[in-house]
């Protein structure tokens, strides 16, 4: 898996779409570095495309933290994708659904929401304490 990750980073530096870690089978496919044309040979595109519920991911993702949100995401482009070719469509959809970066950002912002909730409850608690203490002193 480390090899997969390193290869993905190398490809992103040359502007090729960042491949998902969920697609190790594509590494064995016919890919040219720097070539944006998709010519992947997928034996069975339909079984490959359950990107967010693939059992292979369960062991991979558990230990990850939120550092990856600082990485620049390569932008996904539809240029060169033949949408009449079902295989290419499936691969493009798979890339669109890739949430390697998005899930970390989402998690971060969900956490920020809860920081806000805690701040509001904290302020209300302080006001409550001050108010009741003031009345108690009378």
């Amino acid at each position, binding site marked *: 898996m480390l090899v997969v990750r390193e290869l993905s980073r190398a490809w992103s530096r040359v502007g090729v779409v960042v491949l998902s870690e*969920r697609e190790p089978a594509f590494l064995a496919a016919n890919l040219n570095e720097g070539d944006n044309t998709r010519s992947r040979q997928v034996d069975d595109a*339909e079984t490959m*495309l*359950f*990107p*967010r*519920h*693939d*059992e292979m*991911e*369960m062991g991979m*993702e*558990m230990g990850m933290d939120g550092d990856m949100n600082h990485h620049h*995401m390569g*932008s*996904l*482009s*539809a240029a060169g994708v033949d*949408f009449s070719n*079902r295989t290419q*469509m*499936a691969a*493009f*959809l798979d*890339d*669109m*659904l*890739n*949430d*390697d970066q*998005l*899930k970390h*950002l*989402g*998690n971060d*912002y*969900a956490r*920020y*929401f*809860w920081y*806000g*909730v805690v701040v*509001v*409850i904290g302020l*209300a*608690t302080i006001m*409550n304490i*001050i*108010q*009741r203490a*003031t*009345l*108690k002193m*009378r």
Partner: protein
Amino acid sequence: MRAIATATALARESTYLQYTPSRNSVWFRLPPMGTLMLILLHFIFVVVLEFTNNSVPGAQFWQARGVRAGWLAVAQMPLLILLVGKNNLISLFTGVSHERLNVLHRWTARITLFLAILHFGYQSYGWQHFGLMTMEFNLDECPATGIAAFALLLWLNLTTLAPFRHWSYEFFVVQHIITFFGFIIAVMYHLPETALWSRVYIYIPIALYIIDRLVRTALFTYFNIPAKRATLTALDGQVTRVRLTNKSIKSWQPGAYMMLSIPKFGWTQSHPATILSTPQSHNGDLVFLLKSHKGFTKRLMTHANTSSTALLPHTKQESEANQNNEVASYRAFTNGPYGGSQLDFAAFDSICLMAGSTGITFTLSLLQNLADRASSSEKRLPVHRIHLIWCVKDSRWTKWCSDEISAAHKKLRDAGVEIDVSIYVTCADSFTNQTDEPKACGCQCDKTLGPCCCVAVDEADPDAEDLAEPVTAPQGEKTTRVIATCTKLPSLLPCAKFHSGRPEVETLLMDLLNSAGGESAVAVCGPVGMTSMVRNTVVKLSDERAIHKGTGAQGCYLHVESFY
């Protein structure tokens, strides 16, 4: 301290206001300004979090926005449960009772629905833009589970609209809880396995719900063994007085309420009722006043012991004697007490307690608490002046709790507290209830202003003081002697002054504030029309008097207890 006082006054003025259509507006009712500001703050915060740093270039632009919305929607789950639990952490820290947080629970659910719409909408647009919608639906199980969760969430939100809630509340609660279980399961299936830690936002609310239920069950078991016995007495104005024998609950806050359940009249029904009595009064028994509407309250009225006066025992011996007589009693269970989250009214110099119809249960519990403490405390309480104002449709309604009012009046007088009791007999629906019941009156009031408000006095009552000329009604209509201004009716409530018509709230509160030597407090319990008027009047007077802004005018605290 001055800065805190000024900040408090400004915060009160900005949060107390309420503008809402009050008559026959079941569909649309605006909460007070403070609640609205919280809801708006929540919504704006969520929108900012959704769109900040979320313009991903390329084909993932819509996908990124959809995913962010999904995460924010899931993050609302723990807050939803925190705001609805009867024993919750937010109430513990902020001092706001759970029923006052319920409006935030509803709006959090609506914001969750909004985020779910963004989540589905953005992603769908992105897929459709590239012609991938059909392929996504065929190859991915996320859309199916997501649509199931969305449908359940939509149903949850639609059924919380007021007309549905009011149609059959018990059915609403049961289906709401069952639907929520289904929603949680659908969301768990929908959450991606590439981000399993997102499930923590589901595990937490499940744990909170279970803890709340366990605490409620434990308290319910503890406080209901042995089961209580309820004695029902029918009173004027379609009101039932319910008295529960009580040995288990030793203390409760003034103004607290309980969920009352009498299995004979509905084994699934649990009705909220404010506790009229205090731990020191009525031998520790729990006393409630419930207005008959439909369902549970109507059945109570039907089975109540018929009596126009409260023939209830005041001593233990009388209570035991009643047990031997044929006074029907029923097994009853209670859940609570809850509520009573207002500040301590004894710490204020001048107090105005305002009630409409059965709202007297709340204000009278505060009054009795003050009376008990004033008479038993060695140290004099800060309170110097109390004005109890009660709006009724019929002067005979004062018999509901005339003994309690008289007893509290005497205790406070003996303790040196100045107390006035004013009863306003008004036909104004906004001050008594929400239904339109025009009252025929044989007086010469200007009917173009709406139903008139005249005290109907029993002509046989020798104690009534006549303050106006008798009015002869048009031929064929029932004649009554009309008292146009103020009178005393010793046969009903000797310590009170009876007034005809609705109270001049602004004048009464102005008198209260002008004569106050320190901070004042106002408590009001009644229909929305009454409470919103009092809210707006307090804000107006606070602003006019420039309270805590250098004029020397002291602050005014307001607590509103609404009918639910």
